[in-house]
């Protein structure tokens, strides 16, 4: 591949030809992934900017949205299959992105109290409790939501 004088962006370099070379290697004549036969099917070539383009499709195609209200199409919704997105607070949000809830100006401590607590915001006052709960000492494992 010629890299000199190639001013294309990385995305533009992923031409269909180049991708064919890359992706076809991993798929046999029946469209099955050679590493995960029966499990992964090659994605249909849609718009290059669609998430669907690169993501392998699970051979058990979901016909419904699995109760997810993420407003994405079935093929683009990755929510239903992951346990981590069954949490009511994280329901429907895409993978691999960091979210931070929006802080409001509320519940402000008196200034003197604020200095003692290390913050003037009650909502940011999280005293250290020597663990989220005492499950570790009782021998229980993860999944405890007790505060």
């Amino acid at each position, binding site marked *: 591949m010629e890299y000199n004088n190639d001013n294309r962006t990385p995305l533009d370099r992923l031409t269909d030809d180049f991708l064919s070379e890359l992706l076809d290697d991993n798929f046999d004549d029946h469209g099955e992934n050679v590493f995960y036969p029966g499990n992964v099917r090659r994605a249909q070539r849609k718009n290059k900017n669609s998430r669907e383009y690169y993501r392998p499709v699970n051979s058990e195609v979901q016909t419904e949205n699995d109760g997810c209200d993420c407003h994405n199409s079935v093929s683009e919704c990755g929510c239903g299959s992951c346990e981590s997105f069954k949490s009511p607070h994280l329901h429907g949000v895409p993978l691999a992105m960091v979210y931070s809830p929006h*802080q409001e*100006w509320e519940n*402000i401590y008196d*200034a*003197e109290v*604020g*200095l003692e607590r290390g*913050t*003037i*915001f009650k909502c940011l006052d999280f005293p250290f409790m020597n663990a989220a709960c005492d499950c570790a000492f009782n021998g229980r494992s993860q999944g405890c939501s007790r505060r």
Partner: protein
Amino acid sequence: MNDKKRLMRQIQVFSFAVYEAALYLDGHPNDKKAMEYYNKYSDKLAELTEKYEHSFGPLTIKGNKGHAWKWTESAWPWEYSCD
């Protein structure tokens, strides 16, 4: 607790509140309530700092303005005095 310590403590309390509000405002620049809080405590802080510096000498380099370089005259932070 004598006057100096009491005043110093109040200055610490207010300057902490000012910094907290400033950090919040960095993320919420148009929040009016936060801005009011910041202004209120900044003013209080300025007033107390002025009062402290008048009696006990400069707290920061800004306190030296208009006089001699006074803050070398009182104890450096690591030179404790028993009081």
